[in-house]
């Protein structure tokens, strides 16, 4: 039997190396999956304890308007109504996205259709840069610029939902803008040319052709911005005033899920109801980020059809 024949039937060094590499790289990937699963497992098991071990009513938790987990209400049950924070979170998020999206679309259209040269040279790099600015910096600016401004205009302390929404608006604006720019750029060149060739004005071309074609992408950008805003903790916590009260107007101190979490988790004892109730808030955050994720997927699927 010749040597080559023999070597063909034996496992070569190359294939041993390959098995090794495959195993190593697979374990790295598996590790990431395990991390995600354990995040969900641990947060869920802590967050659900409020309802299962402490016997808090889920509906009461979601709709109750008084948040004072260390106190007991008239009915003898602990006061864990998370509605103020849930409403606070949704309000800042929606307001921020509502302001940011038109600005982002306008800027993106300006950058791609009206003045592509200046857009690429100045606005492009600046937005890219601002995407990378840490959120505490946004919080600090909110605290030193937006809060005093709100105080001067609306009176009161200046802390509140509106300040939070403004900080988030500025924070997500670069992200939403740069994502919108990407979708607008993806609209094929010949759409533009054929619209203009048919005698459409530039605005008609933008409005009827470009924006229509880019709608799914713009929606994705907007939802992505909302997801970031909803999950942002410190920037909001610094300007919202941190009062776990039902918000009655936009300029009085309020709180969000994240702000209560960052403040409270260090000041409560592990395993106590106060602590578990906070983990329930974390669970809501986790589930909402899943919802945003699914929404983005659904939009992408619809857009692809």
């Amino acid at each position, binding site marked *: 039997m010749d040597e080559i024949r023999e070597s063909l039937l034996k496992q*070569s060094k*190359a294939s041993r*190396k*390959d098995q090794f*590499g*495959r195993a190593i*790289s*697979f374990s*790295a*990937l598996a590790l*990431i*999956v395990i*991390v995600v699963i354990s*995040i969900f497992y*641990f947060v869920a098991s*802590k967050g659900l304890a409020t309802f299962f071990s402490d016997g808090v009513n889920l509906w009461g938790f979601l709709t109750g308007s008084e948040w004072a987990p260390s106190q007991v209400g008239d009915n003898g049950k602990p006061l864990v109504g998370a509605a103020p924070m849930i409403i606070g979170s949704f309000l800042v998020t929606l307001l921020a996205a509502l302001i940011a999206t*038109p*600005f982002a679309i*306008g*800027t993106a259209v*300006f950058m791609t259709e*009206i003045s592509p040269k200046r857009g690429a040279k*100045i*606005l492009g790099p*600046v*937005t*890219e*840069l*601002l995407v990378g*600015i*840490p*959120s*505490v*910096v946004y919080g600090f*600016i909110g605290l*030193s610029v937006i809060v005093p401004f709100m105080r001067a205009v609306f009176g009161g302390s200046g802390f509140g939902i509106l300040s939070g929404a403004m900080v988030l608006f*500025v924070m997500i*604006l670069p992200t939403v803008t740069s994502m919108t720019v990407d979708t607008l750029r993806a609209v094929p060149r010949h759409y533009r040319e054929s619209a203009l060739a048919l005698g*459409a*004005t*530039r*605005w*008609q071309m933008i*409005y009827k052709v470009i924006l229509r074609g880019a709608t799914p992408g713009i929606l994705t950008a907007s939802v992505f911005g909302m*997801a970031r805003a909803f*999950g*942002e*903790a*410190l920037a909001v916590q*610094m300007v919202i005033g941190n009062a776990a009260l039902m918000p009655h107007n936009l300029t009085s101190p309020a709180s969000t899920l*994240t702000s209560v*979490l*960052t403040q409270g*988790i*260090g000041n409560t004892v592990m395993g106590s109801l106060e602590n578990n109730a906070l983990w329930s808030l*974390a669970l809501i*955050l986790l589930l909402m*980020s*899943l919802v945003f*994720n699914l929404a983005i997927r659904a939009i992408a699927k619809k857009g692809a059809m």
Partner: protein
Amino acid sequence: MNAKNADKIATGVLYAIAGIVILILAALLGYILIQGVPHLSWHFLTAPASAFTAGGGIGIQLFNSLYLLLITMLLSFPIALGAGIYLNEYANPKSKITGMVRMTIEILSSLPSVVVGLFGFLLFVVQFNLGFSILSGAIALTFFNLPLLTRSIEDALATVPDLQREAGSALGLSRWETVGHIILPAALPSIVTGVVLSAGRVFGEAAALIYTAGQSAPALNFGDWNPFNISSPLNIMRPAETLAVHIWKINSEGIMPDAQEVSAGASAVLIIVVLIFNFSARYLSSYLYKRLTSTK
């Protein structure tokens, strides 16, 4: 209103929006730099913080941020590299399981960083008894960093043409050898960009750290480089407040009289570091690319 007028009005409105946005963005950058840069000095960058009096610096926080970044990168790069390689080189792109794994990674990237921090607190600080420490913080930041870094490494690998993989196969090299010696070097410029950009993100992250690396910065003895001594800068079991956490901390509960100035200075440092990361990502990438294709 006819189409021409509508066009004019719309163009005007778009100019106005773009103008406002440019103004906001410029004011943002300008404010931080104008407020912060005058406050920067060698003393400010190196002196320890002071809790009750003015004139404190950010030396320890700056060191902590950099050290934590280094440990985080040491932990997350190999994992992200392995995962990226598996996803791009080995996984069957059509299989359902691959799709689910990708979705899992995407979910991790969209989790609020405060939740990732709380998970790190629960599991590592409390359960595994690591306490508020650089190690706990680095692990939390690793989780925060993994999805994006994995994604960018995977994308970098995907840009290397399949021709190179075929060339390796046809020479009797295994996929692993081809990846290690051919594909990775070719993808290096984009991998470096991804790593440096993610470093910028990690550097500025605070929410994941306040309950993992902690909010206190004990004094360090910069003459003691034995990583097992508690006051050694290299000790990974000590609590370590970073620059970003410091900004948050002094603004929400700081009582020092010059909190505003210190925050402005620290913010300026954060932004300048992020800027440096951004530029060096671009520079390094084009430098590596040139070297790779150079004719010497």
